[in-house]
């Protein structure tokens, strides 16, 4: 079970990074979504995985009876899900605005701050 999960995480990573290395903003966006999932799963695996024992204290008890899943990564991931959602929304709107303003979604074409003609800075003084 662990092996398949590990491969899943690795492939999510690979897919996300591959998309993020693209030149087109939309692909980068999709890559960010996939990458977010990948990172969440990786954090999740760090807490070790267990089936059927959610970190919920049963009625009438003060501490959970027996081993339960690690609540800490879950709390972290819950935060991360919301943050990556907002991050994604921000990127999306930024991409949208950039496209409107610059007229391209190709990152190589976004040359407002550093026009291509400028070339690299001079080495002399």
């Amino acid at each position, binding site marked *: 079970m662990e*092996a398949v999960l590990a491969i899943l995480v690795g492939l999510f990573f690979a897919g996300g990074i591959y998309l993020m290395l693209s030149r087109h903003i939309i692909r980068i966006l999709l890559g960010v979504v996939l990458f977010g999932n990948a990172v969440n799963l990786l954090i999740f695996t760090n807490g070790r*995985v267990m089936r059927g024992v959610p970190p919920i204290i049963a009625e009438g008890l003060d501490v959970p009876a027996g081993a339960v899943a690690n609540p800490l990564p879950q709390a972290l991931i819950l*935060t991360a899900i919301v943050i990556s959602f907002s991050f994604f929304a921000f990127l999306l709107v930024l991409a949208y605005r950039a496209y409107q303003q610059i007229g391209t979604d190709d990152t190589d074409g976004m040359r407002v701050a550093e026009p291509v003609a400028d070339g690299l800075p001079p080495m002399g003084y």
Partner: protein
Amino acid sequence: MIWMIVLPFVGSAIAALLPTNARNAEAWLAGVVTLVTLILASASYPAVAAGDAIRSNIEWIPSLGLNLSLRMDGFAWLFATMISGIGFLVVLYARYYMSPEDPVPRFFSFFLAFMGAMLGVVLSGNLILLVVFWELTSVFSFLLIGYWHHNANARDGARMALTITGIGGLGLLAGVLLIGHIVGSYDLDRVLASGDLIRSHDLYVPAIVLILLGTLTKSAQFPFHFWLPNAMAAPTPVSAYLHSATMVKAGVFLMARLWPVLSGSTEWFWILGFCGMMSLALGAYFAIFQQDIKGLLAYSTISHLGLITLLLSLGSPLGAVAAIFHMVNHATFKASLFMAAGIIDHECGTRDIRRLSGLFRFMPITATLAMVASAAMAGVPLLNGFLSKEMFFAEAIETHAISVLDTAAPYVAVLASAFAVTYSIRFIHGVFFGPLPTDVPSVAPHEPPFLMRFPILLLVVACLLVGTIPALTIGPFLHTAVTSVLGARTPEYSLAIWHGFNLPLLMSIVALIAGVILYLLLKDYLSRCEEGPPFFRRLKGQRIFERFMVTVSWRWARFVDYRLGARRLQPQLRLLVTVAFVAALWPLYSRGFTPGRFTLTGADPVFAGVWVLGIVCALGAAYQAKFHRLAALILLSGAGLVTCITFVWLSAPDLAVTQLLVEIVTTVLILLGLRWLPKRVQDGPTIASAVPGARLRRFRDLAIAVSVGVGVTLIAYAVMTRTPPPTIADYFLEKAYSEGGGRNVVNVILVDFRAFDTFGEITVLAIVALTVFALLRRFRPAPDSVDSPEQQRIQTAFDEAQPDRETGETIIDYLMIPAVIMQWLFPVIIMFAAYLFFRGHDLPGGGFAAGIAMAAAFILQYMAAGTRWVEDRLRVLPVRWIGLGLLLAAFTGAGSWLFGYPFLTSHSRYVDLPLIGDMPLASAIFFDLGVFSLVVGATVLMLIALAHQSIRRHRVARTIAAADEETA
């Protein structure tokens, strides 16, 4: 005593607020502040003279050994008096010197702040505090030197002074930290009591090197001396204050302060002896060849400070006495000379000695005063400079440590004294005597107002009094100061003018005569030579410094930018990913990492099936993302759902709920956004293969992605197959119910244990939502994406073709049944959200999930009835929800203050609510309510902002159509 430091800073703040043209108000203010400080200092003399240091201690960060502790002993008192006294005189002088056109309040504001910082340096009883004030003096001296910031020289000089003294300050901080480490305390008393401990410690040499780096840069000692002449671009009152009596004195002050602790070693002797001797000789030599009066005085200051440094290097108590004495003497005569130079500049418009001459006829009183002060500088008998110079000579001929330096000391001393005589005569003779000036901008120079001259007069009188009756004037004060530094090691010394015919006197006479002869020899050459000493003229510290700065801050930076920088996003990202990969790989490799045996057995087939599905989805999404975005999007959602199912199975119901809801909202957002982003169509085989290199690049990306994927797989596998160490999670599990009052541990962590994190997080969410809103506000889609989608066009065309149909009816017909269902679902979903919210503390659910579920209800309405319909009926003001949520969360957290608990402490109890029954109610639930409200507000705000674009689209389309008609 604290007032002596606070008052100048308060005065500075007030002066900064005064109007620019208030010329007298700020002078009065500064005068009163300095005078009160002086009175405060003087008033504390009896206590100081009694032998004990006055202390005042305010706890600041006691856990770091950092207290606001002040300490005034005789030495600090001497300096405090000098700083406030000369400060007052300089304020008086500056009142007349500064031109009304300049922003004078700014000058006095900086000036007072500088004075406060300087007093802080001398009165600090804690070394860290001392360093803080030390840095403040550097900063304010930067501001003061650069006061005329329209002048490039002033800017350069200020920057150079700040760079050099700032670097020194860093060294000093490091040195002080080392001392603190050795002694175990930063308290000055404890440090002063641990001399032997420090000297015998392994870290002694690094500590003194670092501390001396600070003091030598501050006191403009060789090889850091070059900033001082460049700082002469400052207004003259600044030079008179900073570069004679205070700023540069801070370095020698600290060396004398720590002298009992640090001195006496060979390293100390060599470093200080060498730097001091070089500064003494070279400073005096360079001073002869300066054409600028202030330049001459600056180099003379370097030379005199070199003398003090040399005296301190010797490690003999008598040397320390002479050093302290000379600090005072130098401050008096040099301050008055700077002021005289300022008057000359003020009256004649130039400070170039070649152009000035014969000024005695115009300003006899100033000339006389300057002459007396110069004589003190040259070490002429019956003036204070002579006394300390005699003591210096007496020390120079003593043998302290047998070495080249020690042997050379007397000769260098006589040589430098001769040079001092030469440049003093040059200053006086060149400026005040000779023919009438012909080449001077101002034709009729005259005596300055009495009050402008008064400070010089006072200082010169002090020079004379100390020079003639030292025992009656400076004697007791000097003794208090010396005793406070040296303690039991205070030597017998005599301040008498006449010690009989001895070697020091002979050396003085030789130096005087040699200096006069040298001046006579050089006179003609000096009157026409260019600035700078022969032989060394080309070797300018300033040039070296500039070269160095250019190399570091320009060439190296450019080199790094050139080599490692990229103008495109992809190479940067690629670099980032690669570096992260290598950084993760390296420790694993060096520690001998084995992921363990990789077995596929024991996998539940259903599990494996779902995960394989997830893998296919991720791969498909990556593959399809180029041209088939919708397909990629659907596959991506598939991957998200697999993540969600994973969470369900592996005991994380909270995550599953949130993930599912977020997945929905994300998909809707992408769908809304995709509509406005450019399409890419597959034309020909593929674009990638058409561009040479593009395919290669994709392969490289693929290789990077695959390596990272494999690495992460191995790490994840290795982590999962190892038993976990005990973690903080156990604590949370134990305390969740007993202290957090909730059964859902994840939710308790979020809203109680780690509520502060959650608070930060929802703040981020709020900021993002507002930014999205701001980005899209009053913003219209680009003309090329305003065309309706194909399906919509066909439907509209169909509607328009039928006379009995209205535009948009088809779509309404299509969606009739879903729309009814979705509208009916609205209250149901709200109920569901409430349910999620209330069970959150005990069962999976909570504010996040509930908030997003609620937002989903709004999304459904948009889908069912269209943007316009919803916007017409929407009564939710998302911005208020956001604000309310944030405030509620903050107030819940702050509420615990009322009961004397830290921020966000939670309280829980069971309440019996009618109808619902016994319900657990923790105060954290209000926090969660804030989270809920904020999440709803933020999500709905983003949705509205994006969806509203479709309404704007119609407007854009109409304007385009109108424009087309006009052109047609």
